[in-house]
């Protein structure tokens, strides 16, 4: 007994189709990310030739076997199927060391094979794209990304999933202009009747809402909406707006921008666990409108609602999609009209590769210095390197023709990639020259192609009142009424201007 013989040797059939495939089905091309979670590789499916991203699941804590965080992530990703959420294609495993691995000294009990999540490949992430020297997003482009972000997040929230790590590097963008939420490594399912406590040690510091900084352990979708507000402001401002170095400073920065919380603007704030510890020494006025006065009116209105201190009053993703901002000129453009940017991974010159390696080295060293992913330090902003505000907030500059910028350091982050502290925030490399990119149209006010209707707002479609306990008719047949549904979710065009889908037969009854 005991020789490792495969099915092949036994001349028996391969395990049936529902078992997971082996990593040998893929050829690793290049490492494109490195996170607390594990490495991320770009790879090719040997059978189909398709390019995918492989995210390795670390199996460090052998005491409890397969990590529960990975179980959560897999469950959530398999549940969520939406064009603005990264698609988990499959899980593959390896038994024993792989070709590119050096044999590790044995002696411990842990699973020596590896497990990978296979994702659709995405060319960029939002932060990486925004950081390219010379690249400017247009207002319709920002609206387009924000709309997709909110649509994806609304879908998550309707499905009772909190993302809990919304930030630019977790928003992946492909060359069709599609934006997808990625990295659900910190995500959690929640239910409205959930009474359990959740950890407040989530969300990257710069994007962490005040309630978590004040120690709240009961919270909901509003935590993600704060992060969205931070990203929104960052897109308009051209740089992160709340770059705190540690938790107390982060709160201070929030107070300086949003004013100090009190029982008037945030009922219950004084009862948050760490309120007394962090309570502001002097009252400060809310200055959002002053600091971002150069933003256009509708952008500012929306931002105000996102960066609301009291989570109970903060705008929801659904309501944000209804904001004037997305329904006034210039309208969000069609994702397909966006310029295609050169991928950061293909056709890299040797030099760039070396540069990347050097950067990764630095990143690694920084990671060693700051192993806590939620208490990252701010980047060393070299003076003169910080981006000036790139977008004035007015509509006059809407040139969509961007010179394609060749790759800087890798910007791919399927995993917990570079945090705010990473050195690649302001990449030193990159080649700012280059020919003009063919204009893909969709500019000059004519942003009316594609899925987002340009004809202003349509009727507020019949969104069923959620909470109504309705019939079992949801599913005797193939669709049993199993999971509670918070009303219906209307595809990519949720909200105004597009009629929410009439709801298929199994969705018209909200199971609450």
């Amino acid at each position, binding site marked *: 007994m005991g020789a490792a013989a495969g099915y092949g040797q036994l001349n028996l059939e391969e395990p049936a189709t529902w078992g997971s495939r082996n990593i040998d089905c893929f050829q690793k091309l290049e490492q494109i990310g490195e996170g607390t979670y594990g490495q991320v590789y770009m790879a090719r499916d040997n059978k189909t030739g398709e390019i995918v991203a492989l995210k390795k699941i670390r199996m460090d804590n052998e005491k409890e076997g397969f990590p529960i965080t990975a179980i959560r992530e897999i469950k959530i990703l398999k549940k969520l199927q939406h064009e603005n959420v990264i698609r988990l294609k499959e899980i593959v495993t390896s038994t024993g060391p792989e070709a590119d691995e050096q044999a590790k000294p044995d002696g411990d009990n842990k699973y020596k094979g590896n497990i990978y999540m296979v994702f659709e490949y995405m060319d960029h992430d939002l932060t990486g794209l925004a950081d390219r020297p010379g690249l400017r997003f247009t207002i319709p482009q920002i609206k387009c990304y924000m709309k997709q972000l909110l649509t994806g997040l609304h879908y998550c929230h309707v499905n009772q999933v909190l993302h809990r790590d919304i930030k630019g590097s977790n928003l992946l963008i492909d060359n069709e202009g599609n934006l997808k939420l990625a990295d659900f490594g910190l995500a959690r399912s929640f239910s409205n009747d959930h009474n359990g406590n959740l950890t407040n040690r989530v969300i990257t510091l710069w994007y962490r809402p005040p309630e978590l900084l004040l120690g709240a352990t009961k919270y909901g979708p509003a935590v993600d909406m704060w992060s969205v507000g931070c990203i929104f402001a960052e897109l308009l401002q051209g740089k992160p707006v709340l770059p705190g170095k540690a938790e107390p400073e982060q709160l201070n920065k929030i107070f300086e921008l949003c004013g100090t919380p009190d029982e008037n603007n945030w009922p219950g704030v004084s009862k948050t666990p760490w309120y007394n510890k962090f309570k502001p020494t002097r009252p400060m006025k809310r200055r959002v409108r002053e600091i971002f006065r150069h933003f256009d009116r509708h952008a500012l209105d929306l931002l105000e609602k996102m960066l609301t201190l009291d989570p109970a009053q903060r705008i929801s993703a659904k309501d944000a999609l209804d904001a004037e901002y997305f329904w006034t000129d210039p309208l969000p453009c069609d994702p397909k009209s966006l310029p295609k940017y050169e991928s950061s991974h293909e056709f890299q010159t040797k030099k760039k590769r070396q540069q990347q390696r050097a950067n990764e080295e630095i990143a690694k060293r920084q990671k060693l210095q700051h192993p806590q992913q939620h208490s990252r330090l701010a980047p060393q902003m070299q003076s003169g390197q910080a981006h000036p505000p790139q977008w004035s907030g007015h509509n006059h500059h809407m040139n969509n023709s961007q010179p394609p910028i060749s790759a800087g350091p890798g910007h791919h982050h399927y995993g917990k990639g570079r945090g705010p502290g990473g050195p690649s925030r302001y990449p030193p490399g990159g080649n700012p020259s280059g020919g003009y990119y063919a204009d893909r149209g969709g500019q000059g006010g004519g942003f009316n192609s594609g899925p987002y209707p340009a004809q202003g707002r349509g009727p507020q479609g019949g969104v069923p009142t959620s909470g109504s306990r309705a019939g079992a008719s949801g599913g005797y047949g193939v669709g*049993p009424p*199993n999971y509670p549904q918070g009303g219906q979710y209307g595809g990519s065009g949720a909200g105004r201007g597009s009629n929410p889908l009439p709801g298929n037969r199994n969705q018209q009854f909200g199971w609450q």
Partner: protein
Amino acid sequence: MADFLTSTHRAKWIFPPQELKEKYKAANQRARQMLEKYGATRVEVDIDGSLSYPERQNEAKAEKHSRAKPLKTEEEHLIRAFYEFKIQDVCDAFKFPRKIQATALIYFKRFYLQWSVMEHHPKDIMLTCIYTACKAEENHVSAEELGKGIEQSHQMILNNEMIVLQSLGFDLIVYAPYRSLEGFVNDMEDYIRATDDQRQTLMALLETAKIEADKTMLTEAPLLFAPGQLALAALRRSNQVHGVLDFERYLRSILSRQQPVHTISELTTALNNIDSVVSKLATPTASDMKHIDRKLKSCRDPSSHDKSKKRKHRSKESPSQLHNMA
């Protein structure tokens, strides 16, 4: 909306009866072949999670063990059924919620669509399925605690975790009929415009239906039918006891409120089929098990016949002992 309709449960794990039979047959066939060639069927899961298959025995040895007889598919079915009862016992002993029990049962059923009990011992797989179900349903229990509670090695639970996850294709979200039960009963309340008295009866209807659903979960029905149908069948049986409403009219009313994918006769046929599967629920007796277990032991690992240390160790797995463990 992500729900059963878009789930892997619906897409990949509900089979026509014939296909189910073929899967069981194929797994059994493979183990038989292994026994024929190698004189043993046991697939060892090593400490690192990798699998080891039996080695080819030398001729003489193979001759000696040629008396080991493989289990028949019916015997495999019986031993699986036995350990499914055990899953309920263990979950009850730990006071796990019904949802975990149902998830563990479905994992267990799915695992043995791919493997024969002759290859992986159901006692080990049962515990690993419970452990994994606890993780997946956010009710985490440490392997050690689980192992201790039932005097089994927690290392064995962990060793088997990868093979279980892989065999499940990492499809971890499963749908049990219990939520649907509550949904339907809520709907019935509206449908009959229940008075307070009737509400009481409906609660009794629900409780009986839950017990019916528990029974259903021990059969093959969850691999054959959607959870909503399992729920309706359980309610219909429960209604035969409580007589709360005209069930066929209620079914018609459900269908009339949606664009039906099924006609009333299709639905009724499905419910009848579920009832028939449930009525055939096998409850293995101790003597059945003694016989099968002996057979299982000899074909998994014929050398265990030798009065060796190994055998003593393995005798811990005997079902009579398991009976006492919960």
